[in-house]
């Protein structure tokens, strides 16, 4: 009996520890924690997407082969980053969350995410789910119809479900939640529908909302003076559709905000805080500690949501704790992450709306004649195109080399703000801009895959993407490899030092997701989701050439 009791206690203890991620484990993910696990969006709260694993190297990567694949039965596209805990891989798309046995590639459980098909009316740019969060034995996931759920990590059964916002008013969620300092947080999207952006914090045990921090300054708040009189701030945009990073030491979480609503700034004169900005929040309370605005008086659809990657880099001989951010507006930023002060801001792609360097003394881009003509109502050729020098797909940073790796786009928009203010109707488009793409000549590259020095935005190497642009996240490893993907279906590994393509594998549909690497029974694995998705831009480039269809692919060196 005593043995039985002991067994029960042991198995109960094991059961808990096998599925209960602690805050300490989350803090150490990607920062010295077990390489068996990938517990956070970005492979660490810093979102560096760097792995110290070096089993797969430049010299042996040609022996990298798939060990299993699994269908995700989804035609809307795969943009997610899976998480891994104790040999179980958790992946999500707009239709479902699945738990997969890493050793066999077999499904352990599936939980459908159901939503009214009409929700797609308020999702501007592709039906997407970028992943889940793990904490304390639960899997947290948001659904397109702006609900947040907690699932039991063992069974997939729903523990709680909370309505975050009303989709009929233009709100939806495409981002992965995040847990920081014991609070589960979610952003939202809807910047094309006249929403008021926010980040919200919830109790992970009950789903009770703890706080909601709006991203347009309301009456009585500092920053409200940057909005016109009246209630424009209520429809002012600033959605938060990419998961924030987190610095456990400073206890600050960093979220980017989207374009303003409507797109044309002429109808909301002023800088419009905190549109197209980064904000530093306390995860326990939502208190805003500082902000920095990437694009004041944003009128270009330059969402400022791209990831805020945390790094410790040497600036003028001194170690600095910084944020690295490549904005849609064409500038690569280095900010002090304790204060939000600008350290460097340089154009990383051709930029014509502002001068190519931001003066750290002012921290403010200097607009050009192009911007002035656009603001005066003229039709202009705008660089970058509204989709940005870089879009949402996250970059990777090697802390040892102090270099960033990501694909960039060199495209030009034909852009004009309409004469009439769009009438606001809840849940309908609220843009007021006519935008098309300037045709390329056949010899022009869509863009490049490049390695960047964050402080100068200079490229160490740059490989043209002639046939198609790239819309995939990146991963860099101590094995000297950079992994990314192509819309044409190839999952690729570049030489970190030269950009030379060393390996590729055709996954059957476009790769526009976020690769990860980890160990299983001592062996290095690489996993990526495949499935053409995203907005009209990616579709334009692949129409009739690449088929949709989601799947998970996991690779290892052939034994």
């Amino acid at each position, binding site marked *: 009996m005593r043995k039985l009791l002991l067994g029960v206690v042991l198995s109960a203890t094991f059961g808990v520890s096998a599925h209960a991620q602690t805050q300490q484990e989350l803090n150490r993910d990607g920062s010295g924690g077990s390489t068996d696990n990938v517990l956070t969006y970005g492979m660490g709260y810093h979102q560096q997407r760097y792995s110290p694993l070096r089993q797969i190297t430049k010299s042996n990567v040609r022996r990298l082969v798939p060990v299993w694949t699994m269908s995700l039965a989804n035609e*809307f596209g795969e943009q997610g980053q899976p998480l891994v805990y104790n040999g179980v891989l958790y992946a999500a798309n707009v239709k479902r969350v699945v738990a997969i046995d890493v050793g066999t590639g077999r499904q352990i459980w599936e939980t459908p995410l159901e939503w009214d*098909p*009409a*929700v*797609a*009316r308020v999702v*501007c740019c592709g*039906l997407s789910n970028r992943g889940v969060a793990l904490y304390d034995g639960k899997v947290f996931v948001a659904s397109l119809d702006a609900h947040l759920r907690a699932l039991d990590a063992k069974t997939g059964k729903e523990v709680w479900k909370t309505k975050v916002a009303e989709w009929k008013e233009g709100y939806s969620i495409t981002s992965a939640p995040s847990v920081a300092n014991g609070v589960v947080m979610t952003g939202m999207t809807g910047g*094309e529908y006249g929403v008021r952006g926010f980040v919200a914090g919830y109790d992970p045990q009950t789903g009770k909302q703890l706080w909601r921090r709006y991203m347009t300054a309301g009456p009585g708040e500092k920053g409200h003076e940057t909005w016109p009189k009246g209630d424009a701030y209520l429809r002012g945009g600033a959605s938060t559709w990419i998961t924030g990073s987190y610095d456990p030491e400073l206890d600050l979480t960093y979220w980017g905000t989207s374009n303003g609503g409507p797109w044309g700034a002429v109808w909301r004169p002023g800088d419009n805080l905190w549109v197209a900005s980064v904000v530093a929040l306390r995860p326990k309370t939502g208190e805003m500690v500082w902000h920095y605005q990437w694009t004041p008086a944003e009128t270009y659809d330059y969402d400022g949501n791209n990831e805020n990657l945390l790094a410790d880099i040497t600036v003028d001989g001194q170690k600095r704790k910084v944020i690295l951010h490549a904005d849609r507006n064409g500038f690569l930023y280095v900010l002090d992450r304790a204060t939000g002060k600008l350290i460097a801001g340089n154009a990383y792609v051709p930029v014509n709306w502002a001068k190519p360097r931001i003066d750290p003394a002012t921290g403010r881009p200097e607009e050009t004649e192009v911007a002035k003509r656009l603001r005066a109502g003229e039709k202009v050729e705008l660089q970058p195109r509204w989709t940005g020098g870089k879009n949402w797909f996250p970059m990777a940073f090697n802390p040892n080399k102090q270099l960033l790796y990501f694909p960039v786009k060199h495209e030009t928009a034909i852009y004009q703000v309409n004469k009439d203010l*769009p009438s606001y109707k809840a*849940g*309908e*488009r609220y*843009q007021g801009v*006519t*935008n*098309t*793409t300037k045709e390329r000549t056949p010899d022009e590259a869509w863009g490049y895959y490049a390695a960047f020095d964050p402080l100068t935005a200079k490229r160490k190497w740059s490989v043209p993407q002639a046939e198609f642009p790239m819309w995939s996240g990146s991963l860099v490893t101590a094995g000297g490899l950079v992994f990314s993907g192509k819309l044409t279906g190839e999952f690729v590994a570049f030489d970190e030092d030269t950009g030379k393509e060393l390996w590729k594998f055709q996954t059957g549909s476009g790769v526009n997701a976020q690769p990860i690497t980890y160990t299983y029974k001592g062996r290095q694995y690489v996993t990526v989701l495949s499935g053409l998705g995203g907005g*009209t*831009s*990616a*579709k*334009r*480039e*692949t*129409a009739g050439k690449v088929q949709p269809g989601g799947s998970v692919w996991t690779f290892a060196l052939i034994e």
Partner: protein
Amino acid sequence: MKKLVLCSLLVCMCGVTYADSPETPAITPDQIKRGSGLYAQHCAPCHGPRMKDPEGSFDLRKFPRDEHERFVRSVTKGKNAMPPWGGLLQPAEIQALWAYVVAGEKN
């Protein structure tokens, strides 16, 4: 605008009818104008401003003019990546969109 009116007149003069839907009411210039506005608000973000540059979405300039019923069904109930619009747009509004698509835009 002049081009749009001319185009509408041509459509009226030709007395367009549809093989699969003979009872479709005749298209009027007012419908085309209304459809143009609805298109700009709801459809242009995916199908392209003035039906040009449809990117990866269905190129409405190529929508078969004799498949009115298919158009109404697709808009109302959704098709592939397109969501259902029946909960937002009234039948008369969908008819106006059809009028605009049939009338077309000049380059």
